[in-house]
């Protein structure tokens, strides 16, 4: 028995090592760094500075702006992505010719590398590009320098691209949720003479609640960390910097202010943590009310 425990520990060791080395240690390390003035190129050893970094962040206009942009990004993309992906799921849920083809095609953006997607849309959003042409067709005057070179539109353009990229993925998760709803519920509703709309609001939506919760949580964890598209498309200019972009800029790009950037990372960590917990609590309470 002893030897079997040893084998088990040995088999589990890749995760144990990885968990300690690449997760626990970095998290503790950056927690500590957040309370120091650690700077890579500095001559002196890191000094403990208490909450100085956190206080400085509150007064840092760049940080506050990146925080604001991150919230706009999350608050703007998540509701739209969730609704659109549900609509897509309903569109391809029923049996029809070519269903598999449409499902796969809608999912393609997600399989594509974010860098490539960002490059494609950088062109599409350019002055005189295809999105500008479409905008003009529906009577909207596009910004003179292109969508990505305008403070009023840059962030929203990137958000639109993100929605485009993500809906296929969440559609798949909604589809799995739809498949899990027992047919008997609809049959009973049919016999009772409920309309399609009534069936949708009284059966489909409530039954999808756990899946919707899952989607909200994973999407907000992901969206709060938006970085790659910002890096490729605007380099944080035109009011598009986000918190992770701020961390990269202050921590790794030129200044190597590890202490300061780590504090910013922890602010984001706490925000994401609070959001996830809130969503869980909210959804659970609603479920209990049903």
């Amino acid at each position, binding site marked *: 028995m002893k030897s079997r425990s040893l084998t088990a520990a040995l*088999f589990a060791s890749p995760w144990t090592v990885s*968990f300690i080395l*690449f997760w626990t240690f970095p998290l503790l390390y950056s927690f500590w760094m957040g309370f120091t003035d650690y700077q890579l190129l500095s001559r002196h050893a890191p000094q403990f500075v208490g909450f100085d970094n956190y206080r400085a962040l509150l007064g840092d206009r760049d940080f506050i702006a990146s925080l604001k942009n991150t919230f706009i990004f999350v608050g703007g993309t998540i509701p739209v992505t969730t609704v659109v992906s549900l609509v897509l799921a309903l569109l391809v849920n029923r049996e029809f010719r070519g269903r598999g083809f449409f499902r796969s095609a809608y999912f393609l953006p997600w399989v594509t590398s974010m860098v490539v997607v960002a*490059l494609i849309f950088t*062109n599409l959003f350019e002055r005189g590009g295809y999105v500008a042409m479409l905008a003009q067709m529906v009577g909207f005057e596009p910004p003179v320098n292109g969508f990505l070179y305008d403070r009023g539109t840059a962030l929203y353009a990137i958000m639109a691209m993100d929605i485009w990229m993500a809906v296929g993925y969440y559609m798949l998760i909604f589809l799995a949720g739809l498949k899990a709803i027992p047919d008997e519920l609809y049959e009973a509703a049919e016999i009772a003479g409920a309309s399609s709309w009534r069936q949708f609001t009284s059966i489909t939506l409530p039954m999808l609640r756990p899946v919707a919760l*899952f989607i909200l949580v994973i999407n907000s964890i992901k969206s709060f960390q938006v970085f790659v598209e910002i890096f490729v498309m605007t380099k944080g200019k035109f009011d598009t910097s986000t918190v992770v972009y701020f961390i990269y800029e202050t921590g790794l790009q030129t200044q190597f202010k*590890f202490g300061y950037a780590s504090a910013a990372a922890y602010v984001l960590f706490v925000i994401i943590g609070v959001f996830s917990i809130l969503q869980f609590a909210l959804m659970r309470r609603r479920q209990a009310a049903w």
Partner: protein
Amino acid sequence: MVRRRTLFGQVLHYGLLIVVLAVMVGPLVWMLRVSLLDKTVSLTAQNLLSASITVANFTDLFAQSDLARYLFNSAFVASVVTLGNILFCVMVGYVLARRQTWPSRILFATVVIVMMIPVHIVIIPLYLICLKGGIYDTYWALILPFLINPVGIFLAKQYIESIPPSMEEAARVDGASELRILFRIVMPLCKPAIAVLAVLAFITNWNSFLFPFILTSSEDLRTLPVALALLQGHQAIDWQHLMAGSTVAVLPVLVLFFVMQRQVVSGITAGGIKQ
């Protein structure tokens, strides 16, 4: 639920499907078309529709840039990481599925917790670890931290739990070692789960940008996404070549996705259903 649809309903349905299709696939078709467009031709709608097709942008890139090197880096790193994921995730998943002891439970809890942790907040400590550990700007930095991942462990554990342990027990009675049981019995039985976690690991790592970008600095170690993102800043590069490079970066995963669609979909939905 089967419900008869009117002709009007069907036309409307297909109309919507096709509009969405155009929106979802249009940008990718655009990429492909521009990559095949002569570099001297402007990107007007008329040219995209009528100008002739050329592969010159691709041959240029392979001849005059390090695209082949970047392609190799992407393929090498993603393959090694995928192999590591197959071996380690099944190994750990096996222990977590079969042992009901408290260390095993705690370990599984750490897997689930890490699945929820936002990875981007550890970029600075991870950068420092690689720097001080002497693997910064080497292939090791691109591989080591990603050899095992919690989603893969989760998938493997769930799958192994669904297999009855009778074969393993029989082998154990016959005196087979645990290592032999793992490789000769568990691994072969796990093939469907392995296909799922392998294809997800490959696609994720092939497309990965942030970590390869911050954990390396030399040009020789750039993967395709890193090379493309850094190319874009240069004035010298035109959209035709940039899209040709993008096509090279996208095509392998598109092919992989079409071949292994079922696995990709079940891997994505497994997490969603379990919650």
